[in-house]
């Protein structure tokens, strides 16, 4: 009856429930030395017609796995792929020890949420612990996105919650001065495209995420763009121009009147 992947999930610990998937921490084998994996289960959505739900889930799991592979080959920092079960909607990826960038930046820790008071010891992580100045962090973000775009992968949901810093205690950096590494996660909405348009929209999504989660973050995003620009080289001119166009779009972004 229950498939192997569902068995795996039944023995795993639920970490969180995102918008479309439940996230678990599990081990693929019973070997205690086996490193943990993160299981992302796109569970059945009761509200969706079963046919529609099935085809969407299959397409999304397969798409996410494909994008991760493409990034890994291109040397973008993303979690490694461990297992794929498109029919059940289960994706297994490398477990990353660390913290999301959102929680490390001012405003992201939960001023907008009700979780501000319940201080998890894990949430108490600060940038000091990662030994990284904010502008270096912004540079890393810009570089990683540029690497991904050079590989023609569009993330589709760039936010500060979808970026993680590896915790220095569990990570051996090859970099002389940095003890951490920025990892892009959650490729659930990603797709393959070489269009300037898609890359510009990707950046615009991040810009909006910055301004909606982190107050007064314009200079932060500006330094992300500068690093992106350097890494993209000659491709930047067209993307930058398109980004200006995209900003003027949106129908009623500012609710005035």
């Amino acid at each position, binding site marked *: 009856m229950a498939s192997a992947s569902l068995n795996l999930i039944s023995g795993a610990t639920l970490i969180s429930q995102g918008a479309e998937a439940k996230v678990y921490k599990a081990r693929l084998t019973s070997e205690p030395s086996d490193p943990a994996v993160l299981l992302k289960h796109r569970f059945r959505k009761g509200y969706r017609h079963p046919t529609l739900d099935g085809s*969407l889930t299959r397409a999304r799991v397969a798409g996410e796995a494909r994008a991760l592979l493409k990034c890994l080959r291109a040397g973008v920092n993303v979690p490694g792929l461990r297992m794929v079960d498109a029919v059940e909607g289960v994706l297994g990826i490398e477990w990353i020890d660390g913290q999301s960038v959102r929680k490390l930046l001012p405003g992201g820790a939960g001023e907008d949420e009700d979780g501000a008071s319940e201080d998890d010891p894990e949430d108490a992580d600060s940038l000091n612990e990662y030994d990284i100045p904010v502008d270096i962090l912004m540079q890393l973000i810009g570089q990683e996105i540029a690497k991904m775009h050079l590989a023609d992968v569009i993330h589709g949901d760039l*936010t500060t919650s979808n970026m993680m810093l590896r915790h220095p205690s569990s990570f051996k950096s090859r970099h002389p001065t940095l003890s951490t590494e920025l990892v892009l996660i959650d490729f659930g909405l990603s797709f393959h495209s070489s269009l300037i348009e898609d890359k510009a929209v990707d950046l615009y999504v991040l810009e909006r995420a910055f301004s909606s989660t982190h107050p007064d973050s314009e200079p932060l995003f500006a330094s992300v763009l500068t690093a992106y620009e350097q890494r993209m080289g000659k491709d930047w001119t067209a993307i930058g121009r398109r980004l200006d166009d995209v900003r003027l779009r949106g*129908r009623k972004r500012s*609710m005035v009147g």
Partner: protein
Amino acid sequence: MPGRVRQIPLKNPDRPYLAIGLEGSANKFGAGVIRHREDGSTVVLSNIRHTYITPPGEGFQPRDTALHHREWALKIINECLVKANVSMHDVDCICFTKGPGMGAPLQSVALVARTLSLLFDKPLIGVNHCVGHIEMGREVTGAQNPVVLYVSGGNTQVIAYSRQCYRIFGETLDIAVGNCLDRFARVIDLSNDPAPGYNIEQEAKKGKRLLTLPYATKGMDVSFSGILTAVEAYTFDKRFRADGQPRNPDDQDIITPADLCFSLQETIYAMLVEITERAMAHIGSKEILIVGGVGCNERLQEMMSIMAKEREGKVFAMDESFCIDNGIMIAQAGLLSFRMGFETPLSKSTTTQR
């Protein structure tokens, strides 16, 4: 668990306040009178609406809609005052829709509001249509700090309150969901009475076959124009039977208008529920409020409550008298801002389509 309870800066009124609201941003003209009592409670004294209905296959043009509003405005306002048993002299402020909406209808209603304001020497309050929907929704349902799905003929937005502002988290990139439904109703010649979307909903109940349509969510945004094209294309498919009947007993592989309505509803509502869920996960809220004309759709409400149950959340939805554009919501939002000390001077009483 509801999201963080919003701090309300507004104190209970020292005396009862009365406001009249005029709405006419699309094909409905509405007027309503609302009273805020000293104990903080709110009474709807009257809520009257007249809809401009066009023949099947046609939409409403701005010019004709404005004509309709001009023709009905005074009758409806009178009726609304009589029903509320108040006189124009009693009201504290006159609230009107400033936008967004169709230019011509908005202007004709703003003109009425300005005239009344000068005649009776009452302050004018310009109200944002979307905020009107949200404030009335909060008032009727008691939702504290919900994620708002605002779905109507002209708007499709996921909105939440954050840092003293209603912010748009996701919206349509092209046409509104109601526009998509209305235009498809025209393609298959459904009646515009009482509303094209209502007739699609009834038709969809007879549909069985789920046809493949594009599924276009992009982050928290959605897009409907491609879906409209795709569903229209099915009406040119050789399996399509406009009357819904097989030509002979062997004619089984057919597509009926009901199937198309069913597929269209299933697809676009799944998209709307998905972006709402994304916004909920993003914000960490457990409450959902559905407002706007499409919000009366029972299938959308049903899908939303299944999603809410999966997340241990709660859905707040309303019936058509408050979902569909109405004057009372303008009165409610306007009176709230009036009590906060806001007024729109005559020289600023313009309208905006955006």
